[in-house]
């Protein structure tokens, strides 16, 4: 029977992703590895022999804006993050909210794999979204000032 794939979301540079691929390969040696990445980086990843499937993600000027929808159920989904707890990746988690997997992992600095519950992940997204909403007001005031200051 075909084993379910492990999906890694490319939220870090291709160099750091390589470390995450090593970690996933060690953890799930018998499972195929899939990577979801913004379309403009697919070329760079197409030569990577450790990747069995590649999925393109539509991104906008705000990064991961479009929800990622895949029919497959994955063994695990891994979110490599460039910091300790995944702060600032709320938009990525949010874009992946409809994906289905047995378990979810965060890979801090691409150096470890830590299980994270779906509820906690959702909570992270909601907190970041709440902060974003509040700070949008400050952003709007700042934008108006800049436009006025530089007569844009």
């Amino acid at each position, binding site marked *: 029977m075909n084993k379910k794939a492990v999906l890694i979301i490319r939220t870090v540079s291709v160099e750091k992703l390589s470390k995450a691929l090593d970690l996933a390969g060690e953890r799930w040696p018998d499972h195929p590895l899939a990577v979801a990445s913004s379309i403009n980086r697919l070329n760079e990843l197409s030569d*990577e022999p450790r990747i069995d499937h590649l999925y393109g993600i539509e991104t906008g000027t705000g990064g991961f804006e479009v929800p990622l929808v895949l029919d497959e159920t994955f063994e695990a989904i891994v979110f490599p993050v460039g910091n300790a707890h995944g702060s600032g990746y709320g938009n990525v988690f949010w874009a992946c909210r409809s994906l289905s997997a047995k378990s979810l992992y965060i890979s801090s600095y691409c150096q470890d794999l830590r299980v994270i519950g779906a509820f906690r992940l959702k909570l992270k997204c909601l907190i970041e979204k709440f902060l974003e909403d509040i700070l949008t007001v400050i952003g709007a005031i700042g934008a108006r000032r800049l436009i006025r200051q530089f007569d844009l």
Partner: protein
Amino acid sequence: MARSFSPQNPDEYLQTLKRVSVAILSYNRCSELEETLTQLYKKGDLWCEVIVGDNASTDGSRAMVREQFPQVKVLNTGGNHGIVGSNLAYTSAVGDWVLSLDDDSHPVIESLAPVCRAIENGCVAAAIALSVRKKWIPAEKSESEVVKPAFGFSSAGVLFNRKAIREIGAYDPELFLFTNELHWTARALSKGWEVAACDHSVVIHRSAPANRSSWRHAHFYCRNTLLFLLRYAPKRLLPKLLTGFLRDIWLFTLLHGSGVYLKALAEARKLQKAKPWQEPRLSIEQFHAIKPDLRAPFSYLG
């Protein structure tokens, strides 16, 4: 009539490289520079010239070039001035086209036939982006050989049309590092030039770990992206774009517990104030085609 290279002489495209100057930005990565130059000359002296724009390296890079590659021209910027090293090399080049490389990137010469064909056929693009990758598998022939329209490139692997460099100028030196390609693309498009890309022609970017600090990435990416919005974003989109970007500056200041983004904001304002901007802005269509990643500056710290 469109030029095609003879199947009897598969290396005919190499003659086109005599119209290409190579410009390499170098800073304190001597062994990487040595590898790049070795790769450039592995099939002989194919190029119009090779120029190294060196940011006053202190690790013996210039001495290495003088000793091992005496045919290479080295231009010393006299200090670490970031992309000024590239600018010096681009503007002193004499070839019709300028192949821009980093000290840790090199072209796969065997893959350059399609861009050489485009050059021979009178390509009028301002720049042709090459496919910058970690490695190249020769057996793979799946990539399109077509040189097609594009809206961005990486300095680690791009062919500049020297006519465009003369008309548009080189990179904006005050940017120092990062997003300089984005700014240049905007200038080129807003002045009526086109940018092209060829997926088949490959540059290997070895991405040496030296001189890659996250703080510098975050600072310059953030500052320069804001400058990009202030200078080139279409007026109609500006309030929304600036609101989102300033929100992110505050958001990531809190999440990352770092003042680097606020410092970048202050510097961007200072630079914008010092130099009133006269260049034309991008149209909404051009801006959406470039699709700058406004979250990128915030992905280096945490």
